[in-house]
């Protein structure tokens, strides 16, 4: 009797729980503002949200983003675009350094966003050691983490120099050390490797990867070096002439604009003839890019290339090719069909398309 009572009691508790959950779910689903509720839930987990952002410099529209951009903890966003695309303007808007229309929602204060600006300057009235210790409010002698960073970037001999006496690379390293030390929830690296030699660039990228490995910090990396972004970014934001061309997961964007994988070979007449039967993508002038929609197509292309002893490179995250084709598609072209691609090129809707080769 007692056992049956407990069973009925437990059963009724289960029914109440399931009923509660169902009624909550129903309320969400049937609520008139369901998308808003869902969005609010998403926004609760975000660091920053951008909506209908517009920046004007005089009569010129520097940025006009109609879509919604959300930055979440742990995001690694690569921001790409040619000069004047609006990359730095976007960073400045987020920091509140330029007037804008639209909304940028964040709970982060300006001081909680780490920034390596494209151009950084410091006072020349004292050695950089004093500048570093002041900006970080620490002492190099007592801060082991800072000592390690200084050692890694081989910056010890520069500490007693004034900022104007540092070389271009040393100046970059000086700011990078301090930005890394900030450990901010959201950090922007605006063309951080510009002006650095290849070896320093590689080392810096390795260090960035290592430093932020497994951390919740969100990174936005503005760069013209696609290989850097392939290494660092998991999301890509493509800007062109102030417009948002694409934003999303790197793999998803690649799939959307390039297919399952891309095979690139040298651009020669022989290779062109050889690959005529396959779908071509827009690509830099020295390459032919072949789109593989699935594994079967990929194997078919590779077989042909192997038979003809043609060197090739296969990628499922080539940001450069994705970028070129995303831009072409945005301006009304077709990215995977060779004939349409040619039409797009002839259309001359976008000046920069002429930099690329349509096969």
């Amino acid at each position, binding site marked *: 009797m007692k056992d049956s009572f407990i069973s009925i009691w437990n059963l009724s508790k289960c029914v109440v729980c399931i009923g509660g959950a169902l009624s909550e779910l129903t309320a969400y689903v049937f609520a008139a503002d369901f998308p808003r509720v869902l969005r609010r839930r998403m926004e609760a987990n975000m660091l920053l949200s951008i909506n209908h952002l517009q920046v004007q410099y005089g009569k010129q529209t520097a940025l006009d983003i109609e879509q919604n951009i959300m930055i979440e903890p742990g995001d690694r966003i690569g921001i790409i675009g040619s000069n004047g695309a609006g990359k730095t303007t976007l960073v400045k808007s987020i920091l509140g350094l330029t007037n*804008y229309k639209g909304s940028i929602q964040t709970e982060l204060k300006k001081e*909680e966003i780490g920034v390596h600006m494209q151009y950084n300057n410091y006072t020349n009235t004292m050695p950089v050691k004093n500048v570093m210790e002041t900006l970080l409010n620490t002492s190099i002698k007592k801060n082991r983490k800072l000592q390690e960073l200084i050692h890694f970037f081989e910056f010890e001999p520069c500490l007693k120099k004034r900022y104007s006496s540092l070389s271009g690379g040393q100046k970059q390293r000086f700011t990078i050390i301090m930005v890394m030390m*900030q450990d901010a929830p959201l950090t922007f690296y605006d063309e951080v490797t510009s002006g650095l030699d290849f070896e320093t660039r590689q080392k810096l990228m390795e260090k960035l990867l290592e430093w932020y490995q497994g951390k919740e910090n969100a990174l936005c990396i503005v760069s013209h070096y696609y290989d850097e972004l392939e290494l660092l970014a998991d999301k890509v934001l493509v800007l062109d002439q102030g417009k948002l061309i694409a934003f999303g997961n790197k793999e998803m964007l690649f799939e959307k604009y390039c297919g399952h994988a891309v095979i690139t070979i040298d651009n020669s007449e022989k290779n062109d003839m050889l690959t005529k039967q396959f779908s071509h993508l827009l690509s830099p002038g020295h390459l032919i890019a072949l789109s593989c929609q699935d594994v079967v197509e990929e194997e078919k292309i590779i077989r042909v290339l192997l038979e003809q002893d043609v060197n090739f490179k296969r990628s499922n995250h080539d940001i450069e090719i994705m970028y070129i084709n995303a831009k072409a598609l945005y301006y009304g072209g077709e990215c995977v069909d060779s004939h349409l691609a040619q039409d797009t090129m002839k259309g001359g809707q976008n000046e920069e398309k002429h930099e690329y080769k349509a096969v």
Partner: protein
Amino acid sequence: MKKNMNIKQCNAKLIKYEMLNILGNPFADFFGVVFPIMMLFIITKAMKSEIPARGYAEACATVFISMSMIIPMAILLLGYAATYAQELEKEIPLRMMLFGYPESAAMLAKIIAQTIVVTAALLIYGIIGGIGLELSMPTVGAVIGLILCQYLLGVIFFGIAHGVSSLFRKFGPTYAVMMTLYFGIMILCGMMGIKAEDLPKFLQVISNLLPMSHIGNDYIDVWMGRSYNFVPMLQAFLFLGAVAGIIMVMAGYKNRRTRG
């Protein structure tokens, strides 16, 4: 993630940084510390043969009072304007802000550092002048009054320098304006050897509007314990203070931003 983790307050390191910033400007060091002492001894030595021995100590005190005003002028009006304009041109305050120092903290550190440096320069000047010259003994009230005048001038000069550099945000035009002001004030207030009475009428009117003229020419009466009408000097302080205020408001208006 921890919030407000990077926001810093005005601290000893920041004040030290601002002091190094002031002292790292050799022009401010020379014109703020060395130049007034040098001028004090050159002028008093030159007039020794021309002034009767009985009045020499009072004359020395007059020069001592006049030259002391070069200190806040050189360090704040000229030095601070030059340094801050350069900082603005290089967007250094922005970098400070991005590294977690709010504008208020950076400003407070600047004010404290400038006060320390001006105080040190006044002390050095006072000690060397007091030991090296045959000054007539001032009353305690006169010394306190002069110190108060120096700090009041310092506040006004800081306001003008900050306003002008914020208006131009470039070193070149800021320095040109401040140098013109610096030498203009020195000429108008009798620090270059020209007495205010010898100036053309309209320049005398401008001269009377500047508290430095009253301090340089008339404060000797207070120093010597004679009666002195403070009203014109206070009016001049109010006038120059208002000018500084207007410049600051103009700079604030120019640099205002509306955000979406």
